[in-house]
């Protein structure tokens, strides 16, 4: 695997083959209405198809008309956006580093020493794309939020003074931006009114808050909070000043990267609790978003909906746009991380056969598209497929 060695090393995850609980046979009839809607076989389209570059972290615009992905080039990384409706369309490159003037003769000889060497990631689209906000470092070591528009000019820093900012998430109604800032030394959530630019700190305390994500009604923000020893999942009401965050998990296991179900009723997240007791195995857990569910112990363990999953903290568990079902890659290296979907209510499971290898970074659009990363030869590409013909 060529991608993301550092993060995996940091997370201490194991990626080796690991036999699982019995999985449904390929092609078995799905035991859930939500899963029955999935077209098989999927008609995959490689939207990047670059023979010598890595792409990762696909993200859809809220209406599903655009798909972004991140492409590495040496130490630099840019975001690219393509339309999803027509194959073969041109992509738009997005970067926080403004175009430089003409290179000197020496720059030219050295291969463009003034080439874009910025790092850009984590795009979040406005509900009516083409607007977006993303994290970038402008080619320097300072991470800020940048705002831009597809087809517009170079993105600009959202605030001139900001630094150590990241993980932007625009609310579904387009009014709010929640993001993480470590400007005071530790990552905390901040809320910005996108119409007035007024800001307030949303979370406090000495734990690091990461990966904020909005509920579909633009009211709640779910996030991960913790330290080097443990992380838990929290939800905070962003519309109420001084609201106290609700802690959805309190057990000893690491719980990372929550995502809301399409109706906002459930929150799914990765947990290193494993029903089999296997260390280094991760599960997906789905709990009520309103905090009415168990926060620890056997009761929470019963809410595990998928075991031995591939974790992609930049993405989080991917909900199907209908029902209460999650689609994920199972950590079966010998089988190239096959894709599964699970109905969180019936626990019915469906294996979705693809010809792709080492699947990662799964995400679904509201209009029924699936995007994910997989290896072609030794390079990572991004694939797109319609999950159903009649979404």
């Amino acid at each position, binding site marked *: 695997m*060529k*991608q*993301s*060695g*550092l*993060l995996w090393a*940091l*997370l*201490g*995850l194991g990626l080796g083959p690991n036999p699982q609980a019995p999985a449904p046979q390929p092609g078995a009839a799905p035991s859930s209405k939500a899963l029955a809607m999935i077209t098989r076989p999927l008609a995959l389209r490689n939207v990047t198809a670059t023979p*010598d570059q*890595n792409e990762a972290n696909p993200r859809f615009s809220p209406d599903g008309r655009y798909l972004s992905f991140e492409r*590495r080039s*040496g*130490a*630099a990384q840019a975001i690219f956006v393509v339309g999803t409706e027509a194959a073969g369309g041109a992509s738009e490159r997005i970067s926080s580093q403004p175009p430089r003037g003409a290179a*000197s*003769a*020496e720059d*030219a*000889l*050295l*291969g463009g*020493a003034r*080439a874009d*060497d910025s*790092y850009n*990631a*984590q795009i979040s689209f406005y509900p009516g794309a083409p607007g977006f906000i993303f*994290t970038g*470092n*402008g*080619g*320097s*070591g*300072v*991470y800020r939020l940048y705002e831009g528009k597809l087809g517009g000019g170079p993105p600009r820093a959202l605030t001139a003074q900001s630094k150590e900012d*990241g*993980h932007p998430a625009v609310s579904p109604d387009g009014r709010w931006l929640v993001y993480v800032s*470590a400007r005071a030394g*530790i*990552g905390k959530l901040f809320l910005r009114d996108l119409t007035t630019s007024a800001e307030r700190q949303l979370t406090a305390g000495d734990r*690091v*808050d*990461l990966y904020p994500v909005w509920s579909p009604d633009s009211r709640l923000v779910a996030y*991960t909070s*913790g330290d*080097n*020893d443990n*992380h838990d999942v929290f939800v905070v009401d962003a519309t109420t000043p001084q609201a106290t965050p609700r802690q959805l998990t309190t057990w*000893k*296991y*690491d719980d*990372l990267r929550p995502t809301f179900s399409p109706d906002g009723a459930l929150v799914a997240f990765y947990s*290193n609790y494993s029903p089999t007791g296997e*260390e*280094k195995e991760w599960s997906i857990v789905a709990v009520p978003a309103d905090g009415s569910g168990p926060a620890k112990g056997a009761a929470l363990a019963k809410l595990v909906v998928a075991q031995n999953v591939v974790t992609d*903290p*930049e993405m989080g568990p991917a909900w199907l746009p209908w029902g209460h079902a999650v689609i994920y890659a199972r950590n079966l290296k010998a089988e190239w991380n096959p894709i599964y979907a699970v109905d969180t209510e019936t626990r019915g499971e469906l294996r979705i056969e693809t010809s792709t290898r080492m699947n990662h970074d799964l995400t679904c659009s509201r209009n029924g598209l699936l995007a994910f990363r997989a290896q072609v030869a*030794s390079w990572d590409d991004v694939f797109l497929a319609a999950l159903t013909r009649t979404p």
Partner: protein
Amino acid sequence: MRAPLVAFFVVASSPCVAPAAVKPGLEGAQELFRQNHWEEARAHLRAQWASLPEKDRPTATFLIGRAYVREAEFYRAAHRFAAEVGLAYLDELAAARANRSVAGIPLFKGLYQAEVGRNADADRTLLAVPATLSAEWKASARLRRALAVHRLGRVQEAAAALAEPAPEARFCRLLAGGAAEPPLVAPKAGRREKLLTAVLLYRAGRAAEAEALLAGINLDLPDLEDKSDPRKLLRFHDPLVTNAWERICWERAVAALMPLAAGASGPEKGLAAFYAGLSLLRLGASEESVKLLQGANASSFGPELQSSARLLLAAATWKARAPTAADLAALWDGTEAQPDAVLLWDELKRGDLAKTEPFATKLAARLKGLLSSGDRPPGALVGRWGLARLGRGDDPGSLVDSLSEHRDKSNKNKLEWNDPLLLLALCAASYRDQEYPQALETLFELSKTFPGLRALQWNLQGIYAARQKAGGEARISQ
């Protein structure tokens, strides 16, 4: 087992080092160069030279030479920093009552005093080295004292020692500004002897013989160990090794660039002449340097190099005739817009010149705000700026803050994201600020790529241990 998540959120979102899928040919080497992997860039080109298209070869040659220049700039800064730290370490050792009988301490203290230019101190210290030293080190003390005495203007007193035939004597003669031929027979053993002879061979234009001597040489070994106290091990590193290595880097740059500078026209010719001229200047070969800089076709330069070349050429004449205030003012007005030239100005202030503008006030003000323009400055420039400010004795804590602003927060010690000169400047500022763990951490990362930094690490760790007792826990294993 808990899976430790990153403590600092930006690290979680940081790019991961891409696998080493280097593109073939010139393009791959250019990428490696931009990522500050200079040695790898050269090796990449050399490995693929036979299949390199003819049209790419001049550019590839320039890249090889430019990579040597970058390396030489790095080792020049490392050499100066190492000398400062080495002397401080020897001062710490000398202050400890328990070390009074360690003969290596006064010897190496004197060697470092000579290296940093404290010639009068070196003269005194090296004259009084203990009689228990080996003949080899007594000879070193005599030669290095001769160099210090020569620099103090007592040329006749130093002449006999500097005329000796040993490689070290010849090397000291070179440093004293004289001609020094390599010995007739190259040494077959002795790391220092080989290194010093290689420098002399390079100066004599015998690059291939020099490189043959350098093959397999280990820059990181200590030159003397003292185990007289069974509870501790003292290691001493001769600063002349770092000095010689810096010169080797400049010599390699000259050897790589001269054929281009003297060759047919092309965009590489003028640039090669400039960098070869700069390298020769660093080697003390002023006349050769001036010829190259004068012959360089400035039309291929950007404004930065034009200003730098103009300043270097003017400065070369100052030894024969001191510039007037009007000369300096005109030159300053014509070059001060370019940050590179401003940093060169800072190197040129010496003697009576320091009392004249721009040296008296204008330069300090310009230096202070040098990085405040809108554009993001290159990391190498930031590093040079930091080192220049440190050289002026500016507040190291403020400099750590300023330099850190230009470091990639998520990959703070990675060369792909940070220029080595920037990291070295940060290391030096942290050291001055007595933030030893930070300095050592950065140094440790740099030493993974750059050989020859072990002496600096060892000495800095020794200072840490002496001044903050906890530092003793982290002695670097050699």
